[in-house]
């Protein structure tokens, strides 16, 4: 078969509804960053658009690579990411009080972002190979625990509570999807009920605990961490049903909501386009997530299914945590709104993830090594 025609064949077969939705959300992001920076084109909006386009190329590139390649690369990628995390732990660059970046000379990278994808790849491969019956087996459980705990503890120590939670919750969703026994789930929940308070007490940094406390009562610290939540609620609330109009938000103009270009971008949507704008944005996310789930269920092997569902879970958790945080339903943990928030790393992670999903869907007929039973 001619490689060129194969390429076009595959391009044609890509599920283009997904990129379409992605770019609708991405363009909302461009417009909102434009508004958040007082209508200055090159204070983020332009960069965001360029990044979306470049990451889109990456997404297609990832999508075109056969899922079997990704299957075989799953563990090496995971191992590499883990090594980088260990590297960060020992040689990382400290920015804003936490050690998240690794200076590679040319650029700084954030290995925890790579791990977000790697953990999904590794767990998908693990459960594919393990087979359904041994999921609840002691060794099966132990293997998954090791795969999850190793990166989780590195990221927690950076310290980066948001990413740790995101990673752990994604992993738990995959364990659940892999078919873990309900009895184990109940036992796990019981353990968590005991362990979580202990973890909060002993496992968290002071500032992380404070963030959680101020979430429950923002008035504890109205100018510090509580300030974000309060001002963000004011911005949303003052938007009303139809909003103040594009570029008309006073909270936004007067710089009351900090980081409204990045994590708090939804406040700009809420203030300027009101409930209508907010719900439309949420609807687009729902459609995007729905298509991902539909794509997963079309796949034929466990690896692809778990990969797509795991990546969908990661993406959904981004959206849920960010929206809940902005609306004052969750603590401020520094999770961006994917595709809309300004920030290069997130776009790269999310678009690579979508590339993997598209690849799984595109190559759903590929033969994978038979999973254990």
């Amino acid at each position, binding site marked *: 078969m001619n490689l060129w025609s194969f390429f076009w064949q595959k391009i044609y077969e890509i599920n283009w509804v997904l990129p379409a939705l992605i770019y609708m959300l991405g363009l909302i992001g461009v417009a909102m960053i434009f508004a958040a920076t007082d209508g200055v084109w090159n204070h983020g909006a332009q960069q965001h658009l360029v990044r979306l386009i470049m990451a889109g190329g990456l997404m297609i590139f990832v999508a075109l690579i056969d899922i079997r390649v990704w299957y075989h690369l799953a563990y090496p990628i995971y191992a590499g990411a883990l090594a980088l995390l260990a590297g960060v732990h020992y040689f990382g660059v400290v920015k804003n009080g936490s050690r998240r970046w690794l200076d590679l000379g040319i650029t700084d990278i954030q290995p925890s972002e790579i791990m977000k994808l790697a953990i999904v790849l590794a767990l998908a491969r693990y459960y594919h190979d393990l087979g*359904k019956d041994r999921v609840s087996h002691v060794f099966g459980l132990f293997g998954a625990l090791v795969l999850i705990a190793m990166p989780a503890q590195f990221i927690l120590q950076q310290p980066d509570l948001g990413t740790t939670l995101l990673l752990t919750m994604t992993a738990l*969703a995959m364990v*659940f*999807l*892999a*078919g873990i026994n309900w009895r184990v789930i109940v036992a796990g929940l019981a353990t968590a009920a005991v362990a979580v308070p202990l973890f909060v007490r002993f496992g968290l940094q002071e500032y992380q605990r404070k963030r959680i406390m101020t979430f429950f009562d923002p008035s504890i610290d109205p100018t510090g961490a509580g300030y974000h939540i309060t*001002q963000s*609620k*004011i*911005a*949303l*609330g*003052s*938007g*009303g*049903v139809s909003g103040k109009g594009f570029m008309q938000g*006073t*909270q936004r*103009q*007067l*710089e*009351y909501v*900090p980081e409204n270009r990045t994590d708090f971008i939804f406040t700009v949507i*809420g203030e300027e386009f*009101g*409930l209508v704008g*907010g*719900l439309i944005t*949420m609807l687009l*996310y*729902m459609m995007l*997530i*729905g298509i991902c*789930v539909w794509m*997963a*269920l079309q796949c*034929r*092997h*466990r690896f692809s*299914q*778990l990969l797509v*569902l795991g990546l969908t*879970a990661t993406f*959904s958790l981004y959206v*849920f945590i960010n*929206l*809940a945080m902005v*609306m*004052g*339903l969750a603590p401020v943990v520094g999770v961006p709104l994917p595709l809309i928030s300004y920030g290069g790393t997130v776009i790269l992670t999310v678009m690579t993830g979508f590339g993997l999903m598209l690849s799984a869907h595109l190559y759903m007929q590929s033969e*994978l090594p*038979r999973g254990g039973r």
Partner: protein
Amino acid sequence: MIEGNDNVSLTRRSLILSGGGIGIFGLLGTRLYHLQVRRAEDYSALSENNRFNYNIIVPSRGRILDRGGNVLALNRQDYRVELIAEQVKDIDLTLSKIAEVITLSDPTRERIRKDIKKHAKFVPVLVEDHLSWEDFSALNIRAPEIPGVVPKVGEGRAYPYNGVFCHVLGEVGKAKPSDVENDKDPLLRQPTFRIGQSGVEKGAEQRLRGKAGRLKVEVNAVGRIVREWPEANNRAKAGADVYLTIDAPLQEHAAEQFGEDSGGTVVIDVQTGEVRTLLSMPFYDGNRMVSGISSEELAVMNSDPKTPFNNKAVRGVYPPASTFKMVVMLAALETGLVNPEERVICTGHTKVGNKKFHCWRRRGHGPVNLVQSLQYSCDVYYYEMAHRIGIDTVHDVAVRLGLGQSYDLGIQSRASGLIPNRAWKQKNRRDGWWRLGDSINAFIGQGYVLSTPLQLAVMTARLANGQQAIRPHVIIGENIPEFADMNFDPAHLDIVRESMRQVCMVPGGTAYRDLPLGPSGVDMAGKTGTGQVTGISASERATGVVHNRDKEWRFRDHSIFVGFAPFESPRFAVGTIVEHGGSGSGRAADISRALLQKSLELDGLIVPPPAEESPKEPGGTL
């Protein structure tokens, strides 16, 4: 490869999670609805709160004018230049550019740098104020080339008469922490606001201050003003003008009379208690105090033996000396223990026990009656009175005449002086028994007796008035309570006043001048006093009395005079003390006489004297 069972389970579980996801979206949507619809109004209000601030607008301070409408204190445009740090790239370069136009001292540069560090980058920092019009206009021309430099016109307090009214007016300054604590007016927290700190500026603060205006401004999160929203009903209300009873030309005349001398004088309307002149010499320039005086200059003024900061007219306490003799005289007449025709023989001294008390005239006055005792100011006559009347009686008369008490003129810091009696000495002196020697000293206005120029003027005004216990005031429109009746026998007062007339108008009187007060022959009445600063020492007694002129300035006698005019229908009373001015018949009498003359002229009661009678220094700066 595809296990049906497995796939069913995964599909089911993915649908469970999807359901959970839809549930979360539902929750988020509900929350958004709650925030944006149900609580929209609350949050809109909060957003407006965020957005708007009220800035306090400082009102114009009321002016202070004299009775004739001469402006004594006003607000002048103050030219200043400010610097907005965020618009400046290189502070040093900018400052040196400014220094090409106006001089900037090193401490000023240092202060500017400190202020810039202290405040947010957009807050204007004062570079220099009180600029001359020339400097200000030069800066205005250069300003567009120097980014961040803003020439501004503000309001500053100015005193057109420079110093003549400084003790009456006081001055304004930045609010002190104690002011801010006691006064909740938001104006006090404004950096450009100035509060009255002394004198009328402080006494009439509430009337002069006005009401703060409010300017609605839109601010961003760091407090930068984005826009202004003026509202008509929130304008600042300017303070009210305050008129004083003071007569500016008279006060200036008084200052001219004093010249280089130190002391105080007060002229009072004997009918109303209006203070026409209240002068303390030397004075200082209130404008310098407002614009900021260097600590070196301040130290020099503070160590000046002539104490320019002390308001001697109301706070300087001096022995009234012989001007106190009217009190003793009136007390003697009231008690009936003396017959006006009775003569006391003055040999130049009196002996009490083994102690000799001298009359000021060493060779004595011979036989003197009551009226002559005042005319010649014979001390021995009053030593004789000390044997006859008790100090408590004299104290009572002195208080009825207004001595020994302070008067609230609306300018604070006033002294009450001292009129002693038995009870006072019992309480305040270790040697508590009132002795004859104490009375002898007190009856000639020495010893424990102390009074201020204001009190002496009040005493004289009450004697001249004869009936009402007038009380002085300086601010027109203040509630003046009805004056009480003094209850002196008019016949007795006539004797006292006639004696005072003879002091000035009859040859032999200690203040006799061969000059009429006016062409129409208006008579004046008065009394001289020579306040001893040091007792006569034993060595002086041995070597003979050292003449006053030969003493060091600070040991010389105080020159004191009280008087009123016209004699027939009194209008004005004066009390003057010239510190270390020598005999009361000299400096104090001259000044008082000139003031009575001038005040009568100003009120049209006498015609101004011919030109050759004009002041010695024509066209002075005052």
